[in-house]
């Protein structure tokens, strides 16, 4: 039942293989050729530069919004801070409720139909309603972000808690472990990898949620900036913002990967070795 994200090992493998085999030059070559063709196409008048910005213009826009006008920082700060706060709050709520529901079979049974309905509804569609209810500003933005990133940690924590390995449970029972011990020493650690997968999805969803909220509110944030630039047909700057989001998305991806290596260390070769030598050091030799 748990939701997993679509970042495939196949793709990552392929990328890493390319890097190892020093094909990077070829990749860059192809990329530059495509970019150049685009630039030429635009200069020759095959692409309307009003709608399809030239690569050179996009690069200039980067310079403008980051350094010359330096107006992007304010919006970046607004978006990123809200995304992080909303993600932390929303996913804490999700994990907490997921654990609660997971441990309580009665609540679980009664909640099931509502979860099915919630799962089928595009959560982001509630955005206008929340803005109307909570007014323009930070509150409704936070509420939207929390709503969109609540679900994945909730459902993953729930399924992590429910799907405890039967054999391990029997082992704990044979050792006369108490309920709290089973929870602390078995169920929670066992559920960590799948909860982390939920957290990863939630952070991505949080960014999308923030963008939608900003599209509607049009006050500040990268989303509203993209909207304004597009309205003014300043497509080059809009694309500079979109590529900024690509970089943020990439940082999120890498950051969550790091966090996963740190928290769910036993899943990774490197993490195991690190913890193994660390524990050896902390254990005072008898």
């Amino acid at each position: 039942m748990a939701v997993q994200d679509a970042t495939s090992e196949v793709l990552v493998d392929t990328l890493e293989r390319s890097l190892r085999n020093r094909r990077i030059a070829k990749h860059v070559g192809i990329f530059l050729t495509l970019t150049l063709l685009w630039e030429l196409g635009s200069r020759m008048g095959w692409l309307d530069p009003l709608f399809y910005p030239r690569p050179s213009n996009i690069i200039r826009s980067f310079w403008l919004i980051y350094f010359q006008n330096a107006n992007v920082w304010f919006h970046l700060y607004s978006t990123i801070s809200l995304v992080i706060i909303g993600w932390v709050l929303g996913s804490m709520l999700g994990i907490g409720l997921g654990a609660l529901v997971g441990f309580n079979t009665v609540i679980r049974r009664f909640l099931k139909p509502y979860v099915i309905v919630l799962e089928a509804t595009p959560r982001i569609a509630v955005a206008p309603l929340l803005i109307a209810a909570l007014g323009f500003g930070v509150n409704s933005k936070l509420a939207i972000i929390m709503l969109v990133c609540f679900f994945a940690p909730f459902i993953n924590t729930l399924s992590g808690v429910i799907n405890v390995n039967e054999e391990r449970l029997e082992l704990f029972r044979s050792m006369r472990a108490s309920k709290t011990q089973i929870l602390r020493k078995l169920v929670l650690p066992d559920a960590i990898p799948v909860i982390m997968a939920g957290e990863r999805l939630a952070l991505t969803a949080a960014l999308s949620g923030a963008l939608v909220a900003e599209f509607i509110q049009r006050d500040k944030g990268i989303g509203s900036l993209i909207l304004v630039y597009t309205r003014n047909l300043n497509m080059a700057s809009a694309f500079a913002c979109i590529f900024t989001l690509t970089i943020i998305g990439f940082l999120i991806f890498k950051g969550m990967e790091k966090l996963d290596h740190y928290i769910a260390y036993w899943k990774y070769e490197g993490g195991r070795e690190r913890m193994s030598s660390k524990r050896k050091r902390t254990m005072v030799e008898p």
Partner: protein
Amino acid sequence: MSVSDQPIPLSGRILDIGVRFLPHFVLFAVIIGAWEISVATGLITSIIIPRPSAIWSAIVELYITEGTIYRHFFITLTEAVVGFAIGAGVAVSLAIASSLWDPFRRYVTPYAVVLNVTPGIALTPVIIAWFGYGMGSKIALAAIISFFPIFVNTLTGLVQVDEDREELFNSLGASNVQVFRKLRAPAALPLMFAGFKIGLTTALIGAVVAEFAQATDGVGVLMSRFSFQLNMAASLATLLSMTVIGLILFYSMEFLDDRIVFWRRESRRAAASRARARTWAAQAKK
């Protein structure tokens, strides 16, 4: 639960279902009742929380007496389905090409990864500028954001084939085309359908968000219009239609999944095996 082998009469089965769902109905009724009373008695006083009865009359108006919802409902449904079909078509074709031809996979991968880490929602204003205010832009956004999960799942399914089975095919002297048709493609189906399910959900999100941004028809438009009129009852009634679309999309895909990837579920396996026995018998008679 009964242990006898006798088929339970229909009336009994209906009663059975009734008894099983009774607690759910009771709980639902209690929640609705408590909500209605607390709004009616002024315990909750807020324009942002409508009474259940108000929501109900909004539902009756939108869905029955006026029937305004249907035009928008089918527009959004169409946008999501067409967008999904385009996204899925491109995704599956690229995935098949990538699985058959290694260099292609290497050169497509970086772009797929970039597309994945960029929040597709961020493209909304640009897509509307490119494709206009009509259904085209909604379909385009739906297609773009449903592309990646389908691409990556299909590719993973096609590439990660059990090595023993592949050896078996090689030992039989199977051609590449045969390996693809008889081994890789069927083995990829379960993951591909998982990708389709995620893709449908995201396609619906894409359609709705694009409608929020700029449109004249569709449930997203209704939703934001009602919300900004502070007509909470009507916007909740509209939200219901999105849930219905979500359920329709999800369960149609589930239906197909069940029939096409029949070998995963016991009941479907049994049905398929009976059907094949029948065709076999029919052929034997001729």
